């Protein structure tokens, strides 16, 4: 197995630019890795083998090779190459891709071939990345384990008996499993940060509105935000730079210019005030997570940061508010899946029965649960107590963060209250599953940038993530701290342990 799969995106881009490796070689290496560890069950959940990671639903090998050849030809001509030329990418199946099946991991969209591309897809292609295909996720991004996918589980490369987190489970598994150095993720309540934490990868949710939502299948419009997943902070910064920016097709897209996050990336955190959020630690967090978090604080202090205690008094209401706002918006966003204009249809004598039967057959249990909750929360007589009240709590939480920035430059917490759990262990209890998002949801409701960076392993050898949160549009500051922390931690992102994914030859340090 080629060493190329162990390289970071930044390294690969340099190799391709200097001609030390061709884009074709890089692409073939990653396709071979997919072949080695992912199985090729695709959309057939019954075909997922016991040791298959099953990150990919579709592998677009031919298109990827053709794109790689174009890059190599461009280099041969002496053309200037875009910044991520030749770097393989895994695309979350929530992004619509022209000509390539897009399902949001739902049966209701099985077979849907979109006639257009998401802005993120276009921008990343223009940046030179080579999409290897579409990756698995929780159905419509609703879940924290990727177990709600209609197309079978994705396994955590660190322990194939455990979940990779979710909803961007396929994305983190592809990156952690070295099938791609980069993957797109989407984060509504923690769907980038929590799975990144559970797989020892770096995942970043930018400020709401920073990355276009055009062509991203909507879950909860006021919270959905796309972001990068990588194995290094630098790669995350590179991919963020390629994804971010104003898009006139998205009314909520921010018009502000995107700051150069590289200017300060390697300048350290000496003198920065880093706030520890009182409400986002302690009870409900696994001991291994708490221990790693305590270690992380020591490390940050050693790097010259000043650690301060910060209270976000309304943070405990974040999760209940989130589980009203997100399902409410979802109930409306998902109304269009009714078997009329696109997607699957279950035939019935009347349109009304056809819609109801299509939706009953096409949506999974968790999606139906959330549609029901959201429909109820918006219905006459309950709107004010539920949706409105939750939207007011968003304001209070945003105000808590504003007050916090008076005393701290950044905030930190564990990314997730626990490490990767075993398949099925939380599926029976929706609230136990929802609690996975307890640390990430406050930042989502406030729209601030937040990311997860590996902080070490727990006593079982499973990865733990540190969440770093920054003021609105301060991705630069956040990445700077994450980079300093990453350098100091020296975390090896290679999955290892008794039940880990097969190691590529020579991949271990």
């Amino acid at each position, binding site marked *: 197995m080629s060493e190329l799969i162990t390289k970071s995106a930044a390294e690969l881009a340099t190799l391709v630019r200097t001609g030390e490796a061709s884009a074709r070689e890089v692409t073939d290496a990653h396709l071979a890795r997919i072949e080695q560890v992912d199985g090729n069950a695709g959309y057939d959940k019954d075909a997922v083998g016991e040791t298959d990671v099953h990150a990919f639903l579709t592998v677009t090998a031919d298109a990827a090779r053709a794109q790689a050849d174009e890059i190599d030809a461009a280099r041969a001509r002496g053309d200037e190459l875009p910044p991520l030329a030749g770097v393989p990418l895994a695309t979350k199946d929530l992004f619509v891709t022209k000509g390539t099946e897009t399902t949001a991991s739902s049966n209701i969209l099985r077979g849907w071939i979109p*006639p257009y591309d998401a802005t993120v897809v276009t921008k990343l292609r223009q940046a030179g990345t080579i999409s290897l295909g579409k990756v698995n996720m929780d159905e419509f991004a609703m879940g924290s384990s990727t177990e709600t996918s209609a197309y079978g589980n994705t396994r955590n490369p660190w322990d194939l008996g455990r979940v990779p987190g979710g909803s961007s489970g396929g994305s983190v598994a592809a990156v952690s499993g070295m099938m791609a150095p980069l993957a797109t993720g989407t984060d509504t309540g923690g769907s980038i940060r929590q799975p990144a934490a559970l797989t020892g990868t770096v995942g970043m949710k930018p400020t709401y509105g920073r990355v276009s939502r055009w062509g991203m299948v909507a879950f909860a419009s006021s919270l959905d935000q796309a972001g990068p997943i990588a194995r290094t902070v630098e790669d995350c910064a590179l991919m963020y730079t390629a994804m971010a920016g104003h898009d006139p097709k998205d009314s909520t897209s921010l018009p502000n210019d995107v700051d150069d996050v590289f200017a300060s990336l390697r300048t350290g955190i000496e003198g920065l005030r880093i706030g520890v959020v009182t409400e986002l630690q302690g009870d409900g967090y696994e001991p291994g997570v708490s221990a790693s978090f305590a270690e992380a604080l020591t490390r940050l202090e050693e790097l010259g940061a000043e650690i301060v205690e910060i209270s976000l008094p309304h943070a405990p209401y974040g999760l209940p508010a989130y589980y009203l706002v997100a399902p409410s918006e979802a109930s409306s966003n998902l109304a*269009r899946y009714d078997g009329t204009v696109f997607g699957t249809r279950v035939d019935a004598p009347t349109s009304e029965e056809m819609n109801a039967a299509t939706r009953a057959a096409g949506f999974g249990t968790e999606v139906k649960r959330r549609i029901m909750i959201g429909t109820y929360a918006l219905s006459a007589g309950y*709107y004010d107590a539920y949706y409105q009240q939750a939207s007011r709590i968003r304001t209070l939480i945003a105000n808590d963060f504003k007050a916090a920035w008076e005393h701290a430059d950044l905030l930190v917490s564990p990314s997730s209250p626990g490490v990767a759990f075993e398949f099925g262990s939380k599926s029976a209890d929706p609230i136990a599953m929802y609690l996975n998002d307890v640390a990430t949801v406050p930042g989502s409701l406030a729209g601030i940038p937040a990311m997860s960076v590996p902080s070490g392993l727990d006593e079982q050898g499973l990865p733990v993530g540190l969440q770093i949160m920054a003021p609105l549009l301060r991705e630069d500051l956040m990445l700077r701290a994450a980079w300093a922390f990453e350098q100091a931690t020296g975390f090896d992102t290679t999955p290892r342990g008794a039940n880990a994914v097969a190691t590529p030859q020579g991949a271990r340090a």
Partner: protein
Amino acid sequence: MTEMITYTRKDGVTEPLTDERIGWQLDGYRLVVGLEVHVELTELKTKMFSSDPIDFGGDPNTRVGPVTAGLPGSLPVANKQGVRSAALMGLALDCGIAGTCEFHRKNYFYPDLPKNYQISQYEIPLCHDGFLDVVVDPDPAYGDEGDEPIGRRVRIERVHMEEDTAKSSHSGDTGRLHGADKSFIDLNRAGIPLLECVSRPDVRTPEEAQAYVRELIAVVRAIGISDARMEEGSIRCDANVSVHIPGEPLGTRTEIKNLNSVRSIGRSIAYEAERQVRAIQAGETIVMETRHWDESAGVTATLRRKETLADYRFFPDPDLTPIVHTDQQIEELRAGLPELPKQARARLAEAGIAADIVITLVDNDLVPWLDDAVAAGADASTAANWITGELLGACAAAELDVHACGLSGTWMGQLAGLVADRTLSNKLAKQVLQVALKQGGDRSPSEVAEAEGLQQVSDEGALQAIVDQVIARNAKTVEDIRGGNAKAIGALVGQVMGATKGQADPKLTNQLLQRAING
């Protein structure tokens, strides 16, 4: 003891009812009507929330992008000109314009609604609290006195922006929903910008309802936001109708949907009012329902019972941003309003044009024609008469739309000018008009007259010769006239006309005959 009588507004607020005209009545029951009018912004180029083009008459499903189809991942962006059109409409109706308003989603499943929600406005519409003044003829049956036209003010509750639905057609013999075994969806209409204008329940007679809609159409055309063609669906009207005994609370209302002509608005309301009174008298209860107007049978019939009140689950659309208007922007828009029908009416009345002619001009969107005619040198009253009388009459006879007849206000002004300078008699001018209507307006009236040999003979020398011949041939008639039978001169005029193929200037002919006979 008079209890305040109230009604419930669209946004749920309760308000008192106003009542100054008795209006329609039957066995002590009176009529209360509120009107909802949807206006398609046909003059825009693109849809309300996407750049998909609006051009009517396109093949099915050819004006559809990802947003119109409601494809996953697609997002709406509001049309700037759509917002502007809505604000102009509000200002034309003397509404207040909201400093900040937002778009809401109205959630309901229907095959003609691709996303299964309609983007509309709910709590805060763009325009609120306006009015539209209309004029109706007095009717003693409605308690009116005198024969002066009656001015009525219909208050406007709101004007809001929304998107249109797709068009569905149905299989089967009738082409209607009932009895069809499947339906066909054409998404071209989906997303077309709509304004919904909601009146307060101030209408008290079927004729007031008609006058309201006619005036609304005139306003829409004056500000140029829609072609306002009811028969083509670019104006759609629903009427909320109830009856009650004065002093008692309002009766349950029914909604008559999709009335597609001014005539059916009047007929359906009159029918529905009487139906409700008779039903109440027969001990039946009026149920809240939607009714369909059958124009050929002349009846309304139940379309849908609202057994459970619709639950639209309105909430602010998180995909769109609020719309903000500063006071200065509102004043700039107001300053840019063109002349409104009510202003045109006042101006024309001032210019001495008769009231009924003014109404005809305004209702037919012909005020600009008159202005052009006057600019071409015609006298206002004369030109107005020619336009509303001869031109409209001739167009109606030829089944022509006056705005597509090929002529223009300038052309009509020139025609009136030829009559005024006696190049043409009235009769000849009418002939010129007929010819031009057949041929189109490429040639000016004088060119048509010349080409057709229709000029009036008003050359005194030429006419004198003919007059002399006629007098010489009719010595007996001349004697009669001299003997006191003045009327007999008509026969001589007729002969002169005959000799000139009707082209002699009648006034001059008369003068010359008088002079020849009486010296």
